[in-house]
């Protein structure tokens, strides 16, 4: 009897513990969002929202006239992220298809953990590679004099988002019912046709979700981009020009900004814009994944 009671007590204690953990995660998210919102809103007492989102010049410490135009940085962020996806998506899907359908199981057992280790490399180290390896290479190939540009940032972010894209794409390719592939092969389709006309379309929603999660990773990355894009404030001149992303700007300016000034609030407003962007991307990925799982059932 006593033992039973003890077991029940333990059971409810464990349940309470997990409930607290769950609630805590939600509370932290709400807390972050509320803080961000509360610290960002005062910025708009002095900055017009239209100016903030549509003007190109950002120079809060200017001795002439402080300017708070975010457009250049929004475009820079989208450019670097878009470039990263352009590079990472084809490679990522290719590797995932290879691992799930072509590779010998022994090769797969070796390659997949290696891909996942790639995700564990600290971003500073990736940035360092960009400075000493990709930067000089880009400067030489395109005769740009320096490699501090959006292309360099895109290459590094592509490397950093590859593990996410490969790992989730491969999982969703593996989740395609075997009958699909067998039916296709039985109808006389080649392995290549089966892979790219049957399996990849069947796993498409999973693959799209993988790419969006990879994109979420790329948008929010700070250190790597800060190290290799040169951080010029001008509106981007193209992939071979220096750009400054929103994350890099926050990292550069937050250290020295006097607290509770318009500049300080404006940096949090940038954080809010970034939060909204990553939230939309993650939400879209989640919706697509869910739709896909429902269809599977």
């Amino acid at each position, binding site marked *: 009897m006593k033992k039973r009671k003890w077991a029940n007590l333990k059971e409810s204690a464990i349940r309470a513990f997990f409930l607290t953990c769950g609630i805590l995660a939600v509370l932290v998210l709400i807390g972050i969002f509320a803080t961000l919102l509360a610290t960002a809103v005062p910025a708009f007492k002095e900055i017009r929202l239209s100016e903030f989102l549509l003007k190109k010049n950002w120079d809060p410490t200017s001795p002439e006239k402080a300017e708070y135009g975010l457009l250049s940085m929004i475009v820079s962020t989208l450019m670097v992220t878009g470039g990263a996806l352009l590079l990472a998506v084809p490679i990522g899907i290719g590797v995932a298809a290879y691992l799930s359908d072509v590779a010998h199981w022994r090769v797969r057992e070796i390659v997949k953990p290696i891909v996942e280790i790639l995700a564990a490399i600290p971003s500073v180290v990736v940035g360092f590679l960009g400075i000493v390896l990709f930067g000089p290479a880009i400067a030489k190939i395109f005769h740009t004099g320096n490699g501090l540009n959006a292309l360099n940032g895109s290459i590094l972010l592509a490397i950093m988002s590859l593990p996410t894209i490969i790992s989730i794409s491969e999982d969703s390719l593996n989740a395609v019912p075997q009958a699909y592939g067998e039916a296709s092969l039985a109808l006389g389709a080649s392995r290549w046709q089966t892979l790219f006309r049957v399996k990849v379309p069947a796993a498409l929603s999973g693959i799209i979700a993988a790419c969006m999660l990879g994109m979420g990773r790329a948008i929010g990355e700070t250190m790597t981009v800060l190290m290799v894009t040169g951080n010029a404030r001008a509106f981007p001149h193209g992939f071979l020009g220096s750009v400054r992303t929103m994350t890099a700007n926050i990292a550069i300016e937050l250290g020295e900004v*006097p607290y509770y000034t318009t500049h300080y609030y404006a940096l949090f407003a940038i954080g809010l814009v970034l939060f909204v962007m990553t939230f939309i991307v993650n939400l879209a990925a989640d919706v697509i994944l869910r739709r896909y799982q429902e269809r599977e059932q």
Partner: protein
Amino acid sequence: MKKITVIAIATLALLSSILLAAPAKKMIQVKGSDTMVNLVQILAEEYMGKTPGAAIAVLGGGSGTGITGLINQTCDVANSSREWKPKEIDQAWEKGIKPRFFVTAVDGLSIVVNEKNPIEQLTVAQVGALYRGEVKNWKAFGGSGMAVSLYGRQSNSGTYVFMQEFVLGNKNYSADMKEMNGNAQIIESILQDEGAVGYVGVGYLYDQTGKIRAGLKIITISKEPNGTGYLPTDKAAVDSGNYPISRPLYMATNGKPKTDVAQFLAWVSGPEGQAIVEREGFFAIGPAHIAQNDKNLK
């Protein structure tokens, strides 16, 4: 069960008594200018080697970071490669901080280009025009037809602010200037980029053997067009003010420095400290600055 509790409490009591009894070793926290961080770190190391019991931690982060640190009382000494702005002094007084300033060294801010650039001399106004983005090609100054590639510091840097005030005439930097993390990163970029121009403290021009870094060219600066140009590495020119872009480097404390801080600052301003300043590529301070330091120590 009870036994465990007793043991646990006893251990805790023992641990806390040890922690409380241990003499709290007081670290002097120094924070600020990236231009000064290497110099002050070496000064601190030499000082600690000679003074038993002294403990000094030196951090970079930029002059703005150090000044904010002193105002928010997260450090004991703020390094800055520029004077404090009146706004910052007001902020400090509002919080009950009464900053006192000590001049540590004198820095000649040097304008550097890649050695393949044929330009030898510029006026202060020409450098300003480059950094305001008004001149986009080296041809305008008689150079090759290479596009100008601007390198500078980030806005938390005292060097950034000093350049903006003294050379750009309080005008905006060109938005095309690449904003780098520190002096060393600017130097590395200039070594690669043939159209580059950058500004760095003189201490960063030298390699470990004390020679000027290979691949760099230091521009001689004149006040007037066709005037005599001077190099920032020329001590006499910096001392006499003939080299136009020079500046004192400051350390600031809250009010009269405490004994351990005061001893360190006195040593830095004395012959031993100043010898290290010179060895590290900066210039020693003159009698006027020494007098100012002595006055502020009391």
